[in-house]
């Protein structure tokens, strides 16, 4: 990982966030809320912000991005509720919204809301998010429903496996939200260093191709945080990422990433 950031500074890319339509006045940290549909994301959002956004029990409820804010330990947090998606791989509009936000906006913390009763499928998504960002907190929601169904989820073991904090919650009952806020704050301020598991047990040929490509990318963009992820998408033929290379969008992302946070603030008005 890059070493030039100071541990307690925000890592989000302010200019990109503004471009993504986030009003960045008077916020210290940016939190993105991601997860599969129907995991209670909007309920967690409401519990964190105290807002009464309408929540519904059906997939695809949040197609537009909801935003809110909260203050915890004197830090002012902006929180963005991303559309619920099953993956970050394919290219429907809502998946792209979620992926672009995490990739280009680089939120200080990404809270991944997970349905404790359907852990395996939800983990597919968690692992994909952890490939893009290493600042995440897993919110193990609907833990009460899991208990009623006779399921016990070992949250400590899960945290060890994933390398990021895991907080069991029951957002509908407002349980576990305090702990969630605590963990978000620890990750945002750098008090907790996430060491996310990056799984890729791939074939030897792929690994070879990958190392060639990563090498090339890193020569052009030294200090790129997710070079492996970008390389994998290119090898997959991900059209959105290829497009980002073609139209130069990737430059903007990477140049913003390479600036120290103070500089990102200073150049914010500078335009493209």
């Amino acid at each position: 990982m890059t070493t030039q950031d100071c541990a307690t500074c925000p890592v989000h890319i302010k200019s990109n966030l503004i471009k993504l339509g986030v009003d960045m006045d008077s916020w210290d940290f940016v939190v993105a809320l991601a997860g599969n549909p129907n995991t209670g994301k909007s309920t967690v959002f409401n519990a964190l912000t105290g807002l009464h956004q309408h929540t519904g029990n059906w997939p695809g409820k949040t197609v537009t991005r909801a935003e809110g804010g909260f203050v915890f330990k004197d830090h002012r947090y902006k929180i963005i509720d991303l559309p619920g998606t099953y993956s970050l791989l394919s290219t429907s509009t809502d998946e792209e919204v979620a992926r672009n936000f995490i990739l280009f906006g680089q939120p200080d913390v990404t809270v991944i809301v997970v349905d404790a009763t359907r852990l395996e499928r939800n983990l597919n998504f968690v692992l994909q998010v952890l490939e893009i960002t290493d600042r995440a907190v897993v919110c193990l929601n609907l833990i009460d429903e899991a208990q009623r169904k006779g399921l016990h989820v070992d949250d400590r073991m899960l945290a060890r496996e994933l390398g990021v904090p895991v907080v069991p919650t029951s957002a509908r009952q407002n349980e576990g939200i305090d702990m969630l806020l605590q963990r978000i704050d620890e990750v945002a301020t750098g008090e907790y260093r996430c060491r996310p598991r990056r799984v890729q047990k791939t074939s030897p040929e792929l690994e070879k191709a990958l190392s060639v490509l990563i090498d090339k990318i890193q020569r052009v963009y030294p200090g790129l945080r997710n070079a492996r992820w970008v390389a994998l998408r290119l090898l997959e033929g991900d059209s959105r990422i290829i497009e980002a290379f073609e139209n130069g969008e990737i430059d903007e992302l990477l140049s913003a990433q390479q600036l120290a946070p103070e500089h990102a603030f200073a150049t914010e008005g500078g335009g493209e």
Partner: protein
Amino acid sequence: MTNRAEQNSDILRLANSLRWEIGEKVHDTLLQSLYSEAERIATRVVRRTEEKQSFNWEQTLDRILTSRLTGVPVMIALLALVFWLTISGANVPSQLLAELLIETVHPFLKSSAAQIGMPWWLSGLLFDGVYLAAAWVISVMLPPMAIFFPMFTLLEDFGYLPRIAFNLDNLFRKSGAHGKQALTMSMGYGCNAAGVIATRIIDSPRERLIAIITNNFSLCNGRWPTQILIASVFFGAVAPPALAGITSALVVVGVALLGIFLTFLTSWLLSRTILKGQASAFSLELPPYRPPRILQTLYTSLIDRTIFVLWRAVVFAVPAGAVIWLISNVHLGEASIAEHLIRLLDPVGFLIGLNGVILLAYIIAIPANEIIIPTVLMLTALTLNLHGVGEGAGVLFELADENAYMAIFQQAGWTLLTAVNLMLFSLVHNPCSTTIYTIYKETGSAKWTAVATFLPLGMGFALCFFVAQFWRLFAG
């Protein structure tokens, strides 16, 4: 910068050639390793504490709600129940509100205005135009919305909507549309603009366009009150009193089902003509049933939906009220502008079984469907020269109950045909201006916006025309 661009295309070229070497299976391999990792972790951390497999009510419920045999009838029955509760529950509060706002407050405002010597035209514009329009919107819309939205939201919270999608998926696929269109259609029952935004969950642009164009066939909350009022006045009245409520409810369900049918028909036609293509497959997760949180649902559906929608309606009713009063009271020659316009529109109206008043109302109400009924009432009162409280034309008089509505409609020469066609036209006509603007923003195309606007309008004219001709041939 050019240097960067070259380096970028270098990277792309390298990636391309590497992709050739490693074969096509990268995506699958990656997904597979992801899945197996997820599986490994899940089996490590999840433990089944006890097997309590006594009675799985979720499965049983799903078997009833999504079965081929009972799924659709249960859906229709649930809709009918919701409308019946809305119609029979909204009656009394609607009357009370009308009594308060129109029969008590309005004369008081008028007499106070006269006492302080306000000129007649000012008090006419303010109280007979603006105030009455707003008062009508509130008394016609608030009670049904305050009952309908919480019930709908409870169904939503419970998890019923995806089951509807599941039931209708097959039909949507056969129409060449995306199964998720059932969800955006449900969203349209609240508000078409919201339904159009919701089509973002559909991946393919072709299917998304179909969903956007046909969303208008979902009756939005601006149109429910029109349907409910006309159904109770005309159909509730002909049924025996004990069955009045359920008859009106069934008529409204019929119109809603016709909307669903037109959605399928239009989707089918579009996907065979200008939007050709195959329906794409998708997986729809049926979320677990969750006990609805009654209090929170009441709160959010009242604040988010009822008050929000009512506010929007009032905001649009205020200028519309002023316009109605002005065109009714500004004279060109011996008739007012409104009378000229109505006379101009009357022949077209007759042709499609409506009348000039209704067509003019639909023009005035383009910004919001919510104000159709108040506009129709005010314009009707004007053309009949029904002077009630206050001075100037275009003023409403007391409407204590449904019989009073019936009385005006009959004086204006309405028949059952007018009622039927008004309900049909309310279902099938152009979207409101907010929705049109949303469609433009979402599609970014003037062409598709025009299609979405004029296709239903043309269909509405055609439908009403044929109904009117057949009606007159066989019934008249």
